[in-house]
């Protein structure tokens, strides 16, 4: 599904953001990406959705060889992914419904099917009643749900989430996290960058930890040692 092999990433001004990172995320998996600020979490996600070019190594995402992707194929890759950010990134002058529909229209989806598909995902994230609300009329948690609905509407195989709960209070965090778990339970792989260790601890999911651009811990690989260390 997502496979990094000896990936390096250097920014023009900023040195190495990723150093020899390798991991493989299988279909339907839920994976936390953790690490201190500046460790390279967002950079990993940016490489996955081809926001930044890979410096060296191989990145494969659901059949795409991202490192060698032509610019014109980038949109095709992104249509297979759902992407959620800490700051929601909704269009302020469109309603919740329009924000979600937008992601479908962009792909050239049939108009007649758009309305129903939008309502279905809004229902799934629990916001059907607020379909006509503008982002400014919604709480942070609700806005993030709209963003998640937008990410889901193209039925992605992978959902990428960069600190999706970073701007939310504890209650909203739990709600959004539960929503992501439900989405994962229905078969979508989730790769979630976070530094909320409480969240990481309370769920039985795989954890990949970065430190200054290097992968220092992967619970799948290091499981035995990890379990031995903590009874």
């Amino acid at each position: 599904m997502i496979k990094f092999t000896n990936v390096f990433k250097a920014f023009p001004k900023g040195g190495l953001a990723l150093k020899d990172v390798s991991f493989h995320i299988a279909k339907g998996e839920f994976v936390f990406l953790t690490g201190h600020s500046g460790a390279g979490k967002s950079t990993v996600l940016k490489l996955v959705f081809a926001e930044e070019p890979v410096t060296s190594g191989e990145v494969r995402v659901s059949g795409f060889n991202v490192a060698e992707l032509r610019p014109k194929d980038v949109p095709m890759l992104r249509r297979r992914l759902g992407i959620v950010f800490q700051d929601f990134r909704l269009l302020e002058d469109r309603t919740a419904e329009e924000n979600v529909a937008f992601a479908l229209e962009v792909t050239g989806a049939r108009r007649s099917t758009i309305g129903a598909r939008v309502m279905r995902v809004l229902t799934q994230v629990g916001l059907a009643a607020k379909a006509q609300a503008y982002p400014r009329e919604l709480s942070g948690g609700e806005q993030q749900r709209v963003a998640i609905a937008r990410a889901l509407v193209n039925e992605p195989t992978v959902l990428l989430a960069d600190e999706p709960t970073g701007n939310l209070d504890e209650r909203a965090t739990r709600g959004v996290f539960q929503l992501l778990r439900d989405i994962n339970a229905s078969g979508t792989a989730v790769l979630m960058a976070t530094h909320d260790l409480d969240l990481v601890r309370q769920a039985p999911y795989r954890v990949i930890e970065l430190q200054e651009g290097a992968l220092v811990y992967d619970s799948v690989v290091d499981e035995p040692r990890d379990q031995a260390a903590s009874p």
Partner: protein
Amino acid sequence: MNLTIREALLTFRRAPLLSALSVTTIAFSLFVVGLFGLVAVNLQDALRGVAERVEIVAYLLPGTPIETITLAEKDIEAFPEVQSAVYVSEDSALARARGELVEFRDVLQELERNPLPASIELKLKPRFRDVQHVNEVADRLRGFGFVDDVRFGRDWVEKLDRLRQVAAAVGLVVGAAFAVVAIIIIGTTIRMAVLQRSREIAIMRLVGATDGFIRRPFLLQGAIKGMLGGLVAMGLSYGAYVLINRWLIQAAFFSRAQALAVVGFGALIGLFGSAASVGRHLRRV
């Protein structure tokens, strides 16, 4: 396509102020171009009116037989440069003089002998009304044995020539300068519209929009703004024309084709300005 039109039109609703500003900017830029165009059109009209009077007169020797003259008239009319050649007999020359020179009517009345020679008056086709062609035709006329003298306002034709050259040069330079200024101003306005929506463009890309998909509504919207600006500019020019006509001088307005050309020019600037702005923006981010 439907979506393109909807998105393009939505811009006007979502950003009415900036849209109005763009249209106004385009309108005034094109208005300036239009005013200059009006001056050019009227100057051209005036020059054409003056050139209309470029006339060559061949005075004939007295006693030339009328048959010879009729034949020669046919020949002269067949010159490629000549639009018309009219024979004016001694008698009609005198009659005309009497009509035109009222003050001397008595003098002319008392003449025993008609002092005025017969002549052939030539008008050249519009594109031959310049020094070189007038000279050529005059030389050819002198070749006829019965032609006594050939007259045309040489100084005057030369001045007209210079005037035409100056008008063309000024028109080209000033017109081009105005057009370039208009393009720059309009381009800047469109750039603002693109920047205002850079967040939206980023989000469109995030959810998998192709560059073509992102670009299309901008192009359409740019063309619409340009066209509206062009229409407003034509309206303003017409207003200016009416005022000038009423208070200053008798002037001419654009022909329908010229007016359409200005509107079309607006639409094209809008289209290409948008294409350039969006293209640059998409390549940069």
